């Protein structure tokens, strides 16, 4: 895994919320189940700590009904590289829901939260995807029409809505 600018994806969203609220929404399962793919995150927030995502019961049922087969217990895994709450989080990421993607190398996600004036923060998400073209396509939202969700742009849009209005689209 190296920093190849051409396979990296960068997303930014402005959210009217505190850095702490945004940090919690990324790192706590009671928040992550309320937007985007609704996965339950489990972070051990120190360098080398484990990162795992488990499906909710609803997600598991829907996914199995739509795509067949059984979902693994852990659908995403990785390792924490850097955790500087509530400003910076770096962790590796591998998608295990699909054998093709599970065989791709670990990718790397960096979340940066910056407080701007008037209670607005920018959240920048950088995903280094060298050697993982299938995951790159998924997180870019290219497979939305096949029921794979809209990728990072969709997730961040829902995160913004949840934090600013208190409800997500799915609720």
């Amino acid at each position, binding site marked *: 895994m190296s920093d190849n*600018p051409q396979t990296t994806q960068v*997303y*930014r*969203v402005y959210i009217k919320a505190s850095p702490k609220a945004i940090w919690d929404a990324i790192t706590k399962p009671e928040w992550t189940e309320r937007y985007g793919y609704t996965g339950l995150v489990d972070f051990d927030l120190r360098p080398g700590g484990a990162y795992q995502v488990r499906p909710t019961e609803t997600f598991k049922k829907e996914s199995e009904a739509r795509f067949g087969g059984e979902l693994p217990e852990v659908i995403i895994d990785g390792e924490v590289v850097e955790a500087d709450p509530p400003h910076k989080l770096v962790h590796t990421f591998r998608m295990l829901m699909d054998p093709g993607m599970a065989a791709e190398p670990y990718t790397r996600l960096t979340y940066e939260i910056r407080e701007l004036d008037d209670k607005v923060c920018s959240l920048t998400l950088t995903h280094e995807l060298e050697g993982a073209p299938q995951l790159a396509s998924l997180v870019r939202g290219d497979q939305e029409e096949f029921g794979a969700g809209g990728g990072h742009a969709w997730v961040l849009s829902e995160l913004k809505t949840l934090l600013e209005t208190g409800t997500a689209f799915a609720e």
Partner: protein
Amino acid sequence: MNDDDPVFKALADPTRRFLLDLLFERDGRTLTELESELEMTRFGVMKHLRLLEEAGLVVTRRSGREKFHYLNPVPIQLIHDRWIGKFRERRVSALTELKAKLEES
């Protein structure tokens, strides 16, 4: 000013839309690479990129001595969710209701 205003303004220019198309084809390009695709001065391209960046449609990132430009689809996603998503939901719920009515009768 509404959050959407700079996005619509940035999209209202063909050169800027072309720059976004270039980044959609291949992300993470330098100013020099983008400039080579346009019949325009370096200063002109920089000005357009700055407007795209102010609207949040382009995010730049430094790596070593180079500065790379990335297409950020989030502002367009937000406009989609606000202007298109709600119409689609209404249509879906109308169809769901129709189905329920038909099945009742």
